[in-house]
């Protein structure tokens, strides 16, 4: 019931956004609104803000106008989004494992928490744009198991770099969330560290972990797109955004199809986490 309502409100929100877009086009002047020399609202002509239906129609047309044999824009965006989704998923898995291992270590050894946690936080203050070329540069110099470093590997590594943080922090909070009395009960039951982890700490960490995974999934997608752009990796939706934006003056609706593709990618990631949420609802208690 709550699920249905959540889905319905998502549809309504999307419809509102489309309505607002078309309303702005209909009501505001084509040249935008300026006060003095400062433009406060953007231009709304078809070149700057194409109609929603023009963008959707563009999806079915060939990527380069007039070339009939080529794939359509929709196919290009879909294949780019799938490619990026794969990289983001890889980043999420790598980041998730790394974050979980770090959190376990920090929960087990207080010394490790004091030593590592500041660096974990520090890692997120370095701008993504700054590390992307670094990763690509370092990666180009190494080979793993004889396999040369691929450009997409850099994208996955950068994506995981963003994804590991919420997981590490969320898992640490979750693993240390059981009340003292619960921990003592397990001690009184003569349970070792492992049994306490499996029967108490892990189930208790689920309510903290689910929002963390949701954040990490979104961060992995954003990280993958931005990394594709800043490392110049081909094949993904990030590259399409840049490519299409360069010809935006002549073909404005095509750029929006790529942005639409990126947005749908984010929604797919969020929906996947929603399914995980559903599967773990038994453990989804209130956070005390």
């Amino acid at each position: 019931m709550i699920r249905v309502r959540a889905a319905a409100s998502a549809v309504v929100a999307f419809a509102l956004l489309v309505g607002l877009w078309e309303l702005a086009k209909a009501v505001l002047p084509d040249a935008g609104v300026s006060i003095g020399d400062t433009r406060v609202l953007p231009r709304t002509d078809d070149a700057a803000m194409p109609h929603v239906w023009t963008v959707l129609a563009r999806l079915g047309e060939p990527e380069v106008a007039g070339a009939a044999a080529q794939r359509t824009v929709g196919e290009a965006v879909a294949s780019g989004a799938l490619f990026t989704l794969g990289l983001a998923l890889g980043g999420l898995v790598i980041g998730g494992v790394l974050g979980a291992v770090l959190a376990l270590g920090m929960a087990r050894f207080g010394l490790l928490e004091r030593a590592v946690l500041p660096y974990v936080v520090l890692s997120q203050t370095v701008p993504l744009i700054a590390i992307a070329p670094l990763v690509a540069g370092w990666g180009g110099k190494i080979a793993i198991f004889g396999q040369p470093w691929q450009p997409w590997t850099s994208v996955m590594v950068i994506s995981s770099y963003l994804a590991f943080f919420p997981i590490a922090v969320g898992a640490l909070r979750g693993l240390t969330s059981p009340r003292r009395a619960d921990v003592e009960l397990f001690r009184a039951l003569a349970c070792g560290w492992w049994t306490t982890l499996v029967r108490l700490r892990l189930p208790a960490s689920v309510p903290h972990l689910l929002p963390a995974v949701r954040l990490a999934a979104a961060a992995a997608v954003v990280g993958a797109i931005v990394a594709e752009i800043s490392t110049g990796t081909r094949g993904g939706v990030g590259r399409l955004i840049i490519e299409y934006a360069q010809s935006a003056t002549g073909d404005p609706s095509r750029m929006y199809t790529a942005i639409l593709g990126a947005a749908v990618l984010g929604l797919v990631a969020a929906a996947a986490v929603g399914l995980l949420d559903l599967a773990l609802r038994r453990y989804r208690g209130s956070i005390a």
Partner: protein
Amino acid sequence: MTPAVELLAVDKVFPGPVQALDGIELTVGAGEFVSLIGPSGCGKSTLLRVVADLEQPTGGTVRVSGKPASQARLDQDYGIAFQQAGLLEWRTVAENVELPLQVHGVPKARRRERAAELLEMVGLTEFARSRPGELSGGMQQRVAIARALAPSPSLLLMDEPFGALDEMTRERMQAELLRITGETGAAVLFVTHSIPEAVVLSDRVVVMSPRPGRITEIVPGRRPGTGTELAPDDVEDVRESAAFFTAITDVREALRKGHE
């Protein structure tokens, strides 16, 4: 028979230093119900935790079922219940009762059977598949007691288990506890703030004084029906008897003496 608990000259000094326990000498016989009572900070909870091996004494000897406390903990010779029921909310009531058996590898079928038996004993059979959150405070505490009894321990350690309950529920739970301990024959070490509760439940009431935590006096309690079948009205009869009020006065005077 081996006494359930033997404490010889037990000291506990917390860093500070705070002398929480000073020269505690106490023996709890098999099947005996002993209450620890005293003002806040008198070390009664610390004493219970020392017996449970959740706290290490700084001096003296602790033996539980004739073994060192740590060995007794590993052998699951005691069951424990705290003031907060402390049920795991992602488990059903029955699964909570099964927990002590599950973590020690008891096969599923046997755990099920034992949980059903214990839930019947505490009168919660129809709630076996409920979540702890759906139960009242008193019912949750009954589940916690069933859980503590799951490995059939010879000793039950209880730290103010009824402290958070209202008076009516509390009296009903006391009668329940007397019936259950009568049926299982387990010894009980019971920490409480309530004088009437200590008197009606216990064979002996141990009165403690604070800073340093010492035993001031041991007053005989009025536990009904020891060794015999407990009739439903027995507990009520005790609560209205003259001997009950005399014992309450004795405990109260012992408590006051500890303060002087």
